[in-house]
């Protein structure tokens, strides 16, 4: 990421923690950051949002784990990962040593799992906060996804907020697969979420015309990429309109600075770039530069001034 001649103050914050750039990775789309080193200055981006970690190491699902779809992809990785011990032993120290900020994504299938993970992450160097991936099946509720039920979702967030380092902002990551995302947003905010990450993938399916069966072993998977951007923007818009004081980490199909600008104007104070990294490993730095240039061209002195701008009357 080379500096560009622009007067725009790109600083923003995750909860109350300041970060120098509004552009972050998206959980599960940049692993733990290492592999992006040849392409991106990881210390210059907002933070590395780590792949969702659970208590135990997980193999993840068998392949095939993905299918390409029009302007997007379907995935079903099954949260392959080293577990919290591996994360604490290997990945977070690597990031911390290099001065890379991390927003640690945690996942579980029981409320207590989430709380334990939050507890284990207290005071860990380099960790700036927690993103809570509640798009996981709740084993105590016949596998219903936490994020699809305002009560289950707020149970998780309340437990995480209570267990987490007080210095760690807690962001709840919402699923778009609900009738009323504002009610979920309100519930988790009331339960103590310091901010909202939105959106997670949409539930989708692809059938292989050769095998004539679903491509993915898990049948359905998560749809991501530019294809879902209008849905993501709608969710950010609706939630910002209803809860203008709640910080939003926006994501879903961001590929360019102008895409990121749309999220900022809709109400996001920071953005994650996910699937676009697979297309362009240099995307994070590029999106930062393009967003800075776009804000500058539109006369904004700071990113903050643009947050939610699209909600204001045109003459404002």
């Amino acid at each position, binding site marked *: 990421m080379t500096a560009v001649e622009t007067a725009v103050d790109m600083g923003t914050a995750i909860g109350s923690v300041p970060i120098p750039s509004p552009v972050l990775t998206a959980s*599960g*789309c*940049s*692993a733990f950051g*290492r*592999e*992006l*080193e*040849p*392409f991106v200055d990881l210390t210059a981006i907002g933070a590395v949002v780590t*792949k969702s970690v*659970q208590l*135990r*190491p*997980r*193999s*993840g*699902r*068998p*392949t*095939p*784990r*993905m299918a*390409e779809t*029009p*302007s*997007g*992809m379907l*995935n079903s*990785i*099954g949260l*392959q*990962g080293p*577990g919290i011990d591996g994360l604490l032993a290997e990945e977070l120290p690597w990031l911390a040593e290099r001065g890379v900020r991390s927003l640690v994504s945690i996942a579980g299938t029981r409320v207590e799992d989430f709380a334990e993970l939050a507890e284990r992450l207290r005071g860990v160097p380099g960790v700036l906060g927690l993103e809570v991936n509640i798009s996981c099946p709740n084993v105590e509720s016949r596998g219903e996804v936490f994020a699809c039920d305002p009560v289950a979702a707020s149970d998780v967030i309340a437990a995480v907020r209570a267990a987490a380092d007080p210095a760690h902002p807690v962001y709840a990551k919402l699923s778009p697969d609900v009738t009323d995302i504002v009610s979920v947003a309100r519930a988790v905010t009331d339960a103590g979420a310091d901010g909202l990450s939105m959106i997670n993938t949409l539930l989708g399916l692809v059938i292989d015309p050769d095998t004539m069966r679903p491509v993915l072993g898990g049948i359905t998977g998560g749809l991501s*990429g*530019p294809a879902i951007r209008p849905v993501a923007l709608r969710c950010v818009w609706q939630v910002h309109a209803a809860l203008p004081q709640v910080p939003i980490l926006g994501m879903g199909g961001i590929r360019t600075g102008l895409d990121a600008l749309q999220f900022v104007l809709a109400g996001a104070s920071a953005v994650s770039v996910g*699937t*676009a*990294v*697979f*297309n*362009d*490993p*240099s995307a994070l730095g590029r999106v930062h530069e393009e967003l800075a240039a776009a804000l500058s061209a539109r006369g904004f002195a700071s990113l903050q001034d643009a947050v939610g701008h699209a909600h204001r009357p045109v003459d404002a």
Partner: protein
Amino acid sequence: MKGQNGHSGALTAPAAKAEHPPVQRVAEVVGRRPVNAYTELRLAAPEIAATAVPGQFVAFAVGGPLSGSLLRRSIAIAGTGDGVVTVVVAAHGPGSTWLAGLQTGDVIDVVGPLGRPFPMPAPGTPALVVGGGYGAAALVGLAERLRATGSPVTAIAGAASADRLCSVEELGSVADEVVVTTDDGSAGRRGWVSEPAAELIADVGVVYACGPMGMLRAVGELATAAGVPSYVAVEESMACGIGVCMTCVLPVIGEDGRSRFARSCAEGPVFGGDRVRFADVGKLPYDLVGADAMGVVAP
């Protein structure tokens, strides 16, 4: 090569990481020609040509400026020299068909070199290289490198039919012997590469293979049964090619003897033929690290 193995009695040590990090750049197509059923493309990409080692691959963005295909297509590097990277593309689905249609003067976004190179044997070790279809192209550079370190090289190139053979001439100019097989007998010996491989394996100290999964499995198992270390370059469906998405995994036995889902782009594409659990590809064996957390239990 024998004895370099880990604790598990495996014949191979895992392939080491490449020395040079990958780069991303826009490259111009400086040449194209049909090669049997395939298209050979030559790309001006000096940084990649300068650092690539046989076994590595590049990943292309496909479809042009309005493309709705986001995922990169991985293609093995078939040769490097004079700042040019050569690849051989088989038009298969929409992405590779688009690649195969590139014309001289077109530009394309490429990332590389990616993946781990083929490990080299002790100098002078006689080597067998086995290529299936366009997979043979990726072995030309390896054969050259082996020759340069004093290894006598025997090559086998196989395909379904004569028109799907690849790089036979190039292999011929570096290998001591080239055996050609086709399933339909339209060129060389009728049958699979595994037949000549079985005959030749006793005379070599290391085997390398690149081609379809079934072929890799046959060659890998043959070598392991003969006590010869083998390295195979696998071709798993990849979304990113750089190691961040976890879509390209297959079950691989690690140095500690435990099996894990390894990323074929970052821990591979070159794996020890005795380390890939071919029978379990596409499955979730209970003894994989972390399979228990997925609810898979020992039978």
